[in-house]
């Protein structure tokens, strides 16, 4: 079965007092372990609504649509890399030197990642294809990222094989500095216009 991968990652300028992070955190942490199609749509509607409020604060990002043989591998790659970073990040958070580094610059960025693996040729696949078919000059705009995220609740989840959402850092007290997102494996991120 051929599949299509869609992934979108966005760096959001966020302040400790902003509601974005706690809202996302709650939506993710309270999501049921088993979801019906209606549950799934409701879940993604909530995520998209929270992110939609933050579109003006999107600073950097990256998205990709991969069809064919590499799709499932791409999903595995994104999810395993993000989940795999957990141990390293935990160690860093406790290290004194890193405390200095993180506190140093403003801890004002969070990274949100949404991943989907859909059956190729289905209406979900076509919806993604149409929404991702943007002029190259608009690949890296907040507007495009907002539109792509708004597409998610429109998917027919009967055709969605797998999906994932990640919010980093997880602690409400922490955040990434601009230095963090310019290095440490995030070099691929694009400045959003």
């Amino acid at each position, binding site marked *: 079965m051929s599949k299509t991968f869609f992934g979108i990652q966005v760096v959001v300028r966020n302040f400790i007092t902003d509601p974005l992070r706690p809202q996302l955190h709650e939506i993710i942490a309270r999501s049921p372990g088993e979801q019906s199609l209606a549950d799934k749509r409701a879940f993604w509607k909530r995520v998209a609504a929270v992110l939609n409020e933050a579109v003006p604060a999107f600073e950097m990002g990256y998205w*990709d649509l991969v069809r064919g043989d590499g799709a499932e591998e791409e999903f595995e790659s994104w999810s395993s890399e993000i989940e795999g970073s957990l141990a390293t990040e*935990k160690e860093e958070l406790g290290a004194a030197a890193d405390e200095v*580094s993180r506190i140093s610059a403003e801890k004002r960025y969070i990274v949100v990642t949404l*991943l989907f693996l859909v059956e190729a040729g289905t209406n979900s696949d076509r919806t993604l294809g149409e929404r991702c078919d943007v002029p190259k000059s608009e*690949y890296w705009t907040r507007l495009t990222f907002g539109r792509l995220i708004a597409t998610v609740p429109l998917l027919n989840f009967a055709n969605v094989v797998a999906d994932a959402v*990640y919010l980093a850092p*997880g602690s409400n007290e922490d955040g990434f500095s601009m230095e963090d997102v310019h290095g440490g494996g995030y070099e691929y991120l694009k400045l959003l216009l």
Partner: protein
Amino acid sequence: MTEAPPDRPFTRQVLIDGDALVGARWWQESLRLSADPISRRRALKGLVLVLGGSAAGVGLVAALIRSGDDVDVSMDALDLQKREGWNAGHPGTALRFPGATLFDADGGRSWVDALGTLASDLAPGQASLSPFYVPTLFQALGVASSASLRSDMMPVAPRAGGADVLRGKAILSLFEAVKMPADTAVILDLDGPTAVAVAAGMAPGFEPVFIFDNWPHPLGVVPSHLTLGAVLYHRPTFVRARSARAVPAPPVFVLDRNRLARYTDEDTQFDNRYVARLPTAENLRALGIRHTLYVSPSKSDLHELDDLNDDFVALAAASIDVKSMPLTDLDASAPSGDAAPARSPAAFYYGGGPHTHLWFWSSYGWHTPALAGRPAPVAPSNVSAGPAYRPALRPTIFSSRTLGGGSGIGKQKPSGFGRVSVRASRSTGTITGIRSGRSGSFGRAGGRSGG
């Protein structure tokens, strides 16, 4: 016969709820295990690989960029420097160091080896104060792209006679007279090199918490390279004091008053201004702070700078007493009789003499020194009305600039403050030029390419 899908087809495979990451991943097992791909309809549209930024895709896009592809945007100055280099847009312009010296306060050159470790060398020793340390300026020296900054840097010596250090020692002696109370914090809001020198004088008894939140730039409206140079000069004093200081020590928050310097000319200035991020009233109360002494340059500057007004009013509302003292209230003894004035005074005192020094506590009232046989202090005649100062809310461009009603960490800059015009490619998101003048011309960016 087709098997009906389960009511809840999505099963969560992973749930992470940690400090580093929050996340969840689901699979729809019925689709994952499907063994009948033939019955599925093929895509109607051609299976075009949409390159949302893969390396190959961006390489192609970059090759097709036209000048009309650029767009002018405003960008946070610090973010721009972190992205394009500390001297963004002006890589050939040198920093100027009036008062530079080759040697630090110990007369050595260990500062050369300390350039990359300044942020950790000067971090507060007390963990409770670490969250309020803002070493952004020090970190400018540590990044790989700042090799030219490291080679440009020089220690900046204090003014002749070391008056600023001596004034710091005078503040220290006032607090030593009341046994270094941990419930009183000092905020130095002076021009950068002066603030650093005063902090160096106080360092044996106070824990310096530097709050320098920008990077230097050759055209910076805030001459923060001079502050950085002063820190390099006094670094041995700070490092030595940290290991010798009794704990807990009261904090001295060290600010550069030039952070709000007047920005007038985009032709000749780079807007590296920033706002001070002091601990909130709640933070200070948690630290046990009940009194705050705000040290300003002179009698004409008794009130706090605009970006601190909201914070100071909030402190007062939280019953944390805020009083002000200009640095000029600390003075050297006047020569008596016909004696020639000393070229370099040995000590400074509140009110200008040892007999008025401890009157500070009579004026400020927070603590009472034990005189232990010494004569009672005399009221000075030439000091400010700082003890009577109380912060009052006033409209500023920084008023209510916080999200969610908090203050301190998370404080927002007002629009247009600390921002720079840049030209960027719509296609690649890379910066192609940085505004260098009112003429609208854009210099090329620092040479990085994206994609």
